[in-house]
């Protein structure tokens, strides 16, 4: 039984945690929130000094050649600080191009995605139309879409590569509840688009990377919400006692830890199942997304409640966690949808 991190994995986790704790400070995240939701300095040092933006990209294509477990460790660490980074968009696009892109697309985009020079986003549409190299349609809810250079768009079964600067591309950035990952609407009107070499593989990589990223971020965020609340409860005194000595308070914290421990099993089960090509991979992905998103939202809500009035202020960071948790709940399928996929797997197959 080796369902434990290797020494190398522990080192990656420690490095990433230390990096985000030091650099992804509240002040810098808030500065990014007031702009386009990206802390450029953080992003640049994450990609170049830490060299972790290409963790899941093979070495031959300029990455670190590691797997989903390592990617999850990094996303977990970023989530713990609610870091304002296009981590998900770049990883999804890079992994999709690795899995299904043409050699030309890989050569054109992977170095820029790994170095952080280019920013990518992904979105899907059921009623877009593609013919003769031109794509038309509306793609909503593109994370960090307003800042993206590269658009990896899923139109039905197809996966298409579009440059944001191309003619016929109109991107509208929205003010979004979670300002650390603002959403944009992309409208294409006969915009030039390239098909990938393997649509199914590229779309699968978009899904897998997105779900692992969100589940791992949620795990990190939930654990941070618990840790910060524990610290506060030992300092804050009411009725002559630290408020953390009240059993009603302790039991809420315990309930958070119970869910977080399961969320941790969920993330690394799913990441490992993907890396090993396990036949449990699909159920693991649905489980991880649904369970971790629910856990993060519960923990972030408790973080506000257990901080009392200060937790409701703009000044305190609790709302950053709460809003990130809410956006993760809806992104890439809500928890009910993922549970229904699991129900279909276990109930609707022939006995």
């Amino acid at each position, binding site marked *: *039984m*080796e*369902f*434990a*991190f*290797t020494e190398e*994995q522990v080192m990656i986790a420690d490095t990433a945690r230390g990096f985000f704790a030091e650099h992804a400070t509240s002040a810098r995240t808030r500065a990014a929130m007031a702009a386009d939701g990206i802390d450029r300095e953080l992003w640049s040092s994450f990609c170049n000094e830490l060299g972790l933006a290409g963790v899941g990209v093979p070495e031959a294509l300029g990455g670190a050649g590691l797997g989903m*477990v390592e990617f999850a460790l990094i996303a977990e660490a970023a989530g713990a600080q609610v870091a304002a980074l296009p981590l998900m968009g770049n990883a999804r696009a890079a992994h999709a191009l690795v899995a299904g892109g043409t050699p030309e697309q890989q050569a054109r985009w992977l170095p820029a995605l790994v170095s952080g020079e280019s920013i990518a986003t992904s979105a899907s549409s059921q009623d877009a139309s593609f013919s003769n190299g031109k794509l038309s349609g509306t793609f909503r809810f593109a994370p960090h879409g307003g800042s993206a250079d590269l658009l990896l768009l899923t139109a039905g079964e197809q996966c298409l590569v579009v440059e944001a600067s191309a003619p016929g591309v109109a991107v509208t950035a929205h003010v979004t509840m979670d300002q650390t990952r603002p959403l944009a609407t992309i409208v294409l009107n006969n915009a030039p688009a390239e098909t990938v070499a393997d649509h199914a593989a590229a779309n699968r990589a978009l899904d897998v990377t997105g779900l692992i990223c969100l589940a791992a971020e949620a795990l990190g965020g939930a654990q941070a919400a*618990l840790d910060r609340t*524990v610290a506060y*409860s*030992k300092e804050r005194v009411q009725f002559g006692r*630290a408020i*953390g*000595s009240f*059993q009603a308070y*302790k*039991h809420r*914290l*315990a*309930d958070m*830890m*119970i869910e*977080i*421990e*399961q969320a*941790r*099993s*969920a993330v*690394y*089960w799913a990441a*490992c*199942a993907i890396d*090993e090509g*396990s036949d*449990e991979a699909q*159920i*693991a992905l649905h*489980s991880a997304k*649904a*369970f971790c998103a629910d856990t993060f939202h519960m923990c972030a809500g408790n973080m506000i409640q257990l901080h009392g009035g200060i937790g409701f202020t703009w000044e305190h960071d609790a709302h950053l966690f709460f809003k990130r948790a809410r956006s993760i709940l809806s992104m890439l399928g809500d928890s*009910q949808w993922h*549970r*229904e996929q*699991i*129900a279909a797997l*276990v*109930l*609707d197959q022939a*006995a």
Partner: protein
Amino acid sequence: MKLGFSAEDEAFRAECAGWLQAQMAGPFADIRGIPNLCDEIPRRKEWEQQLAADRWSCIGWPAAWGGRDATLAQQVIFAEEYARAGAPNRINHIGVELAGPTILAFGSEAQKAQYLPDIVAGRKIWCQGYSEPGAGSDLANVKTKARLEDGDWVVDGQKVWTSLAHYSDMIFVVARSEEGSKGPKGLSFLLMDMDQPGVEVRPIRQINGEAEFNETFLTEARCPADAMLGAAGDGWKVAMALLAFERGVSTLGQQMQFRNELDAVIAAARTNGKAADPIIRQRIAQAEIGLRLMRYGALRMLSNTDLSDIDGAALTYKIQWAKWRRDLGELAMDVLGQEAEIAASNHYEWGVLPNIYLYSRSDTIYGGTNQIQRNLIAERGLGMPREPRGIS
């Protein structure tokens, strides 16, 4: 980080699965899959002895004491295959999983020679004398007294919730051997024969109609002075070490039983059409997620070789499975509807699914209630202030 087991371990799996399945298809087919702990006692003793005959009864123990020196992974695999084969719950699980490992850890060579062979061979069944009417969650409040007289410990008091005491041969008793002592100090851990005039067992009927638990009255019950693990006054230390064995490798076998239970709920939902109800579908999916997360939580716990860290997976495991199983019982009843309210015969006896609903109310109580578990998680896992103690 890896999900699976090594090729060597998988070979071991094939070996033990082959043996278990052959036994359950052949000589012990009559007790395959029986759900509770109280039925078919003589056959189940024979089963224990068959396990022993082929050296499968205590595989984690040293070979010198009848075990196989099995690795943790092999013990996990055996527990999984045992449940998968539908082999009946071990009637001597208290002897095999609790008393034996504690004797191995704390017993003298003479004590090991005296007690272990009968456990391995399935000759003597053990029960646990911990709880008392005034010492439930507050176990250290034990009042049962032990005094030395003519080279014997003489024990007076009452134990309660002694599972399976009515057919046990031996009991381990936590008793207050130092007069006037309080709390965890002054306790001793005694190994006593059940078959003596000073021991009286009265069954306690539970909400499901069965009587797995008992009250055990000790009135001048005796054991030799050296039938004690650790020294006089070490009882609390030994008792707590024993509880740590409780959440060992058997957890994955328990999960195979849970798998069978959830499969029964799924089968019922498919048969009666509830599988089309969107809310039932959500709840079944939630149960499926919870069960799989239990498995990977247990694998994390068992793969964790650094025991100096606080192991969050281990600390939260009890409340996790207890809540899961209570939810499963409620889901089972909602799937079955009013059919579940009617017993299969004109006795007050329940099939597997309604019985989970009733029985699982005890899961959140025994072995530390959910409320005690939350205190432990907050205090040990999160470093929160301890609960104030009352003045007694």
